[in-house]
């Protein structure tokens, strides 16, 4: 019952984290105090890690560069890929790190001010790491959609007057 409630709360917050516990309680037909305690638990269990705004930075700052880097690495005995991932994600420039199946091992997404800054980070920090075999850097040119949100969408209500 409580797990079910938690899942529903997560669905709602995932869509819009600005909903207050009172609103969520109304939407779910649940008791507000139950919703508050469920959210507390979700935060305590590190299931909810934070509440951030989705921002289209391109509209605000011109000097923002995002790069997706494919890394091939040699896994280390007893540690697998975790240790090398740990050494990479601790850099604040690194936004995202994924372990991948297929042609390469790690996806690293980096936010930088300029292409040069990103390139230098790769050349000076990532490439020289002992277990990194190769890197391939791809720069993002345009964002169309991220985390389910379409960047170019302008919602227009075009429903017309009709008899019903």
């Amino acid at each position, binding site marked *: 019952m409580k797990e079910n409630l938690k899942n529903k709360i997560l*669905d*709602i917050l995932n869509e819009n984290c600005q*909903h207050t516990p009172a*609103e969520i309680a*109304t*939407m*779910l*037909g649940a008791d507000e105090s139950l919703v508050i305690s469920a959210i507390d638990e979700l935060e305590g269990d590190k299931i909810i890690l934070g509440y951030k705004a989705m921002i289209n930075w391109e509209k605000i700052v011109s000097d923002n560069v995002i790069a997706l880097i494919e890394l091939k690495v040699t896994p280390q005995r007893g540690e697998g890929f975790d240790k090398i991932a740990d050494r990479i994600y601790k850099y604040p420039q690194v936004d995202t790190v994924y372990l991948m199946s297929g042609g390469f091992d790690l996806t690293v997404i980096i936010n930088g001010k300029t292409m040069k800054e990103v390139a230098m980070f790769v050349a000076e920090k990532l490439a020289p790491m002992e277990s990194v075999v190769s890197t391939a850097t791809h720069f993002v040119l345009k964002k169309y959609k991220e985390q389910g949100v379409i960047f170019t969408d302008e919602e227009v*209500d075009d*429903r017309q*007057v*009709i*008899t*019903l």
Partner: protein
Amino acid sequence: MTDFESLLSEKVKATKPSGIRKFFDIVAEMKDAISLGVGEPDFVTPWAIREAGIYSLERGNTHYTSNWGLAELRKEIANYLERRFSLKYEPKTDIMVTVGGSEAIDACIRALIDNGDEVLIPEPSFVCYSPCTVLAGGKPVPIVTRAEDEFRLTPEALKAAITPKTKLLILPYPNNPTGAVMTREDLEKIAAVIRDTNIIVLSDEIYSELTYGGTHVSIATLPGMFERTIVVNGFSKAYAMTGWRLGYAAGNPTIIKSMIKIHQFAIMSAPTTSQYAAIEALQSCDEDIERMKNEYNYRRRVMVDGFRKMGLECFEPRGAFYVFPSIKSTGMTSAEFCEKLLYSKKVAVIPGDAFGESGEGYIRASYCYSIKNIDIALERIAEFLKEI
């Protein structure tokens, strides 16, 4: 000078224009009005369905289909009706594809009604049944449903309305505008009255996918009712496909065949692109229905809660996407309330009497809007109530 008005058919002259339409002409003129008036989903048709429509155009599927509709679509409709509502129809003889549920309603009424035949219409309900009956030469007989019965049709009210001339009972559940549903037990009581008569049931189940806290039951699944029920359904509400204009009727092959007669001369066939898109909808979009329904359910609760907190009595709707709060406590008529609300707070809701005289004292608010929009509208209505 010719008086063209005098040339019009008596039947058409006797048909009143829709009350909703009149009201919305005012709304259309008004800038920054917030509307809770629209009776269609705010969701855009799921992409997979739109894509299937586009692909059919690319392939050049631009011709008429059979009068009955694409064979593959009818087969998928039969699968769907069995999968979702345990209704078993033979796709070749029992199912016809129409231009929206509306055409199916019109064709069904015209196929059955002769001059003077009576059509029983539970009210408040969707606006088309009575005019369609009048245009077919029949006599609409409203049956008033009441808030204390949760706007369900009761066997007592039904019995009281039946005469030797009764030909057809419209069963509009889940109901627009009240949001009422009929449970299996409710339907069994209706079936018990109808079963041994010659009355046919037109069960308008266009909102069948939008029920909250229970699954829709079709009266056609009850013993003895299958042959005497025409089920009307469609794609508009469940799949957010209003503009595609696609619906269907399923039921007794003798009646369906006569409906096809009307359909083939008036319409020929339903839009081909829409039919191809609908196949995709039925094959792969059950999850989209679930997603949209879930969202409607959130909004439904927010809205009922909002109206109740304002002090308006509000029956909890179990289906469709409308709430139908009572405004009797304000002392105003529905029309007064809606007009004043629109002019002073720029919020549009529909006066309940647009859905039959028994809707007087109520307003219909649709929750086909984002929660943000609903919150703003509710706030303004609350202010309005404080000021009057």
